[in-house]
């Protein structure tokens, strides 16, 4: 009896056809806005992504593979991996240290330190390359000294690593600082008071708490490290097969009118971007509460 009463109540509560809550838009407006959003995103995101793969395979699979098997291209792929293998762990170590110092302690000047850590994001990539040329280039401050000791940094491997490290500098720190600040210091204090050493506290208490955030930061850091163009272009010297990373190799192939080869290399980097986005999204869905919140 009461069951049917509830049911009829519910039926009465169902709004009549064509009714709309006063705090939302009409169906037509919704459809128009969704269509406008889709159009904009399709034009600026989907089409460019699609064209990379279409052009890469425009002459068939053999041409695609031939484009990738050029020795200079293979050297570029190896160089890109090697540079990322140095820059990313370095910035990862820095990010963890900076987050530990900033999140677990209270000291003066913390805001300034955090602003300085974010600084590389507001510097043009070209300027990121330029500052190392000013310091280590042949006419730079340390140029004569480096030459006397037969050390080459600019137009060589160390310069590429430095420039890449600069542009990817804040990624891990920026993810970990808010996350560790949110988590507070209670667990670490408990561990220390129970006799754990600093390293034990970090490895057994802090690290399990921040592992997904750390992975998130490393993921974004790596994507930028492998794809950086402007900063690396300034310090690389563009020696084919020696100091060209994948993005620089794309530029060279493109300017040589090797269209298919250029897009073949580009498709590898586009694939990396897609994998990065997928892993990032999975991390956000699955472990969203274990990541730092706020806009990204």
């Amino acid at each position, binding site marked *: 009896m009461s069951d049917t009463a509830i049911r009829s109540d519910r039926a009465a509560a169902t709004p009549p056809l064509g009714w709309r809550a006063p705090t939302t838009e009409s169906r037509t407006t919704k459809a128009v806005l969704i269509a406008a*959003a889709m159009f904009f995103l399709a034009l600026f995101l989907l089409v460019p992504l699609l064209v990379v793969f279409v052009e890469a395979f425009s002459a068939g699979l053999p041409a695609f593979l031939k484009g990738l098997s050029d020795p200079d291209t293979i050297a570029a792929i190896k160089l890109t991996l090697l540079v990322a293998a140095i820059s990313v762990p370095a910035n990862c170590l820095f990010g963890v*240290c900076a987050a530990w110092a900033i999140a677990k302690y209270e000291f003066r000047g913390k805001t300034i330190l955090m602003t300085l850590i974010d600084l590389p994001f507001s510097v043009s990539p070209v300027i990121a390359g330029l500052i190392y040329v000013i310091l280590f280039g042949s006419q730079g401050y340390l140029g004569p000294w480096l030459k006397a000791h037969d050390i080459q940094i600019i137009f060589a491997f160390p310069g590429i690593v430095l420039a890449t490290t600069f542009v990817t500098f804040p990624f891990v720190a920026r993810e970990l600082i808010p996350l560790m600040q949110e988590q507070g210091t209670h667990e670490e204090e408990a561990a220390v008071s129970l006799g754990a050493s600093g390293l034990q506290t970090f490895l057994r208490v802090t690290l399990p708490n921040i592992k997904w955030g750390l992975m998130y930061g490393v993921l974004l850091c790596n994507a930028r490290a492998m*794809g950086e163009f402007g900063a690396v272009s300034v310090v690389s010297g563009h020696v084919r097969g020696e100091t060209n990373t994948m993005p620089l190799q794309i530029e060279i192939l493109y300017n040589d009118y090797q269209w298919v080869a250029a897009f073949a290399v580009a498709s590898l980097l586009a694939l990396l971007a897609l994998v990065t986005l997928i892993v990032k999204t999975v991390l956000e869905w699955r472990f969203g509460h274990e990541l730092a919140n706020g*806009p990204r």
Partner: protein
Amino acid sequence: MSATAAISTRPASWRTWRRPSVIPGFGITFGFTLTYLSLIVLIPLAALVLRTTELSWQDYWAIATNDRVLASLKLSFGAAAIGAVLNTVFGLIVAWVLVRYEFTGKRVIDAIVDLPFALPTAVAGIALTAIFDKNGWIGKPLDAFGIEVAYTWLGVVVALTFIGLPFVVRTLQPVIVELDREIEEAAATLGAARFQAITRVILPSLLPALLTGFVLALARGVGEYGSVVFIAGNIPYKTEITPLLIVIRLTEFDYSGATAIATVMLALSFLMFLTINIIQAWARRRFGHV
């Protein structure tokens, strides 16, 4: 007793500078942070500033206000501003649709908004050039109307719109989520039509986030290099952006010229950074949120 004595022997400034903590490791992590930050970021940037001070004020002014430099700054800022306006308008729609509406494929679309952050700029550059070239998918139909995009200033706008796309969306999304639905309900019960509620109640409270997103997109666009150089055509005085001019000066081994232009750009991006902070301070006072 001895512990208190040990603490009191420390200089007063040290104690007030940092609050004592039982957690070990401050010295090593803070020391490493400061050293690494100095070596990678601060010292090289200081070298750039130092290099500029070697120029006389007249020389610096002559380089900074050189016709070619001014033309490039006009293009960089103009194109970045148009791109940022486009991104503000469409970014608002995208963010609104993603937060408030339910539709199929929403999560995929939400994820793909970050593509410009993940896709290397050189890849974006050649892809956009291929699309907007006279024979490209979009360039061809536009060419029929006499509109040329690739190798003109419009190409620069396209590239900078792509690069700045995520900023407005990602700044707005959390703010729209936090919007108080009760205020909208109040507006509705007080007789406001939905359109009035949006323009008079919702948009004003989104304004700080919109402005922040706009400036972020603008700042990113002004410094952008990789995606632009492919599509711009790079004709001096016409389609040459400021970062490219720095690269050209460097290849001419004109370090002073490159440094002077770079510091102009750094000063301008510092100004934009300051603007964001002012907007956010104002928003906190006015709306109680950012």
